[in-house]
């Protein structure tokens, strides 16, 4: 009970700080925090697979990118705006998730990783190669932000919009994780054969988790397309997928707060490092090595371990 009140209080405090961001920070940093929120959602959606279901996917950027491209293509080819494009982006990401899930869930472990990687690269190669439709690696600039009754054109308005959408998504994810379905996912992570012996249709649970993760990743991708007003094939790239994996592992897989912290840190570091050197990916690799060596259960896991050690002498 104390834990529940504590996490509720912490949630309110974080929300209060976030609401104050546009008043306290320069627009550049308001934009950066917006990006952190978007990638927090992206990382959390991956954690539903990695941390809760025990499925390591290296193709999660596919759903992020498909949603972003749906928005760009609808706007730039058909002039369709937010009311239609936003739901269409979610639908496209979810459908892509369903197709990839059916193909990838035939395998487990590193084979699952390789199949998700390969299928995501197929999606990437379409965006990269079909120049007449997607502009190839030039990407698609000039996407106008949606107007849901009030303009999202300035940085502050888009920040509040993102905060609202990501906030609702996090509440939904938290509810899913706490439900009997979420409990079953953790059981599947621990032992598929035991769950089958107990009467659980393991495939159906994994499929549902995969499609839900794709939908939430698509939501993040849609927010990112409007955030940048630009879409490019790097959204679908394996580096994007790997970055999300590192966000989850850095923060702590199997929690919701962990990936959010990991995402905020990586987005901040990327911004900071990129202003000094172009070798960001190398720095990312070093971070990954350091985390697996010194904090294999992520920052959140490290804190939990530290507390346990102090409470049990």
């Amino acid at each position, binding site marked *: 009970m104390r834990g529940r009140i504590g996490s509720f209080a912490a949630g309110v405090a974080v929300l209060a700080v976030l609401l104050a961001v546009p008043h306290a920070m320069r627009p550049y940093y308001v934009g950066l925090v917006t990006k952190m929120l978007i990638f927090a959602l992206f990382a959390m959606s991956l954690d539903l697979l990695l941390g809760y279901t025990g499925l390591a996917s290296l193709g999660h950027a596919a759903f992020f990118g498909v949603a972003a491209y749906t928005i760009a293509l609808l706007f730039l080819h058909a002039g369709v705006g937010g009311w239609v494009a936003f739901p269409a982006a979610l639908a496209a990401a979810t459908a892509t998730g369903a197709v990839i899930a059916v193909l990838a869930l035939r395998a487990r472990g590193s084979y699952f990783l390789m199949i998700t990687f390969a299928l995501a690269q197929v999606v990437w190669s379409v965006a990269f190669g079909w120049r007449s439709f997607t502009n190839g690696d030039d990407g698609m600039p000039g996407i106008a932000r949606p107007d849901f009754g009030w303009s999202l054109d300035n940085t502050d308005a888009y920040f509040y919009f993102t905060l609202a959408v990501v906030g609702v998504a996090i509440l939904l994810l938290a509810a899913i994780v706490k439900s009997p379905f979420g409990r*079953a996912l953790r059981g599947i992570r621990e*032992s598929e054969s035991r769950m089958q012996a*107990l*009467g*659980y249709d393991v495939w159906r649970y994994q499929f549902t988790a995969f499609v839900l993760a794709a939908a939430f990743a698509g939501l993040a991708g849609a927010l990112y397309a409007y955030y940048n007003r630009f879409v490019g094939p790097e959204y679908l790239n394996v580096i994007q997928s790997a970055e999300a994996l590192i966000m989850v592992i850095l923060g702590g897989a199997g929690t919701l707060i962990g990936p959010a912290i990991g995402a905020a840190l990586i987005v901040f570091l990327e911004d900071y490092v990129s202003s000094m050197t172009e070798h960001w990916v190398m720095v990312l690799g070093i971070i990954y090595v350091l985390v697996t060596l010194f904090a294999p259960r992520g920052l959140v896991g490290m804190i939990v371990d530290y507390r346990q050690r102090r409470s049990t002498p």
Partner: protein
Amino acid sequence: MTALAIDDLCKNFGGVTALAGVSLEIGVGERRVLLGPNGAGKTTLFHTISGNLMPSSGRIRLFDRDITQLRPDERARLGLARTFQITNLFPRLTVLDSVLLAVGGANGRPLRLIWPMSSYRGRYEEAHRLLEQWGLAGTARRVVRNLSYGEQRQLELVLALAGEPRLLLLDEPTAGLSPAETSAVVAMVQQLPRDMTILIIEHDMDVAFEIADRIAVMHQGRLIAEGDEAAIRANPQVTEIYLGME
């Protein structure tokens, strides 16, 4: 009606024949022990009954329903539960959470995505009742991988019982246990309702004769003897391949 009817079951792994035509019938409420030396095919037989392995040929019926083609979870929802020879639990979950999964699993309810588990009051009551009944109440909040081996074997049994199965398969429930823990498990099995059908793989002769109504002996993928304690003790072939080694 028979609880389990196995008809001419064969299983080959490449060139190796693990089951060479096993036929077996077990009546409702019967306690049957499966004996046999290592490599006789006992665990393979269990895996084909529970659906973890598909037989090369032959048929399996559960309460007069053909289940040969069904998946393990479908068989579980028809009232079949099993334990594993190598402990197969949820290492990083608590005992209570493990039992909650077992209580919620066997009925195959639709996926519930939103309402928190804590609102399912009935499942908690059932889980606590089971832990109380089988002497694990004190471990409810502990993480499974921190339990002693004996407690883990007991939890295996509790998980299998949570769905109130009609047919229970126990794969060496007392393997590796101390004499005190072994008699605790034997007592657990003897307390189970008499209408529950139980098939047990057991190496310990004394345990086998204590639990069993009838005994079946396997050797090299075949059933070579069936009967009560006296018949098995008197069977010269069994004495030669199994009892002779004692």
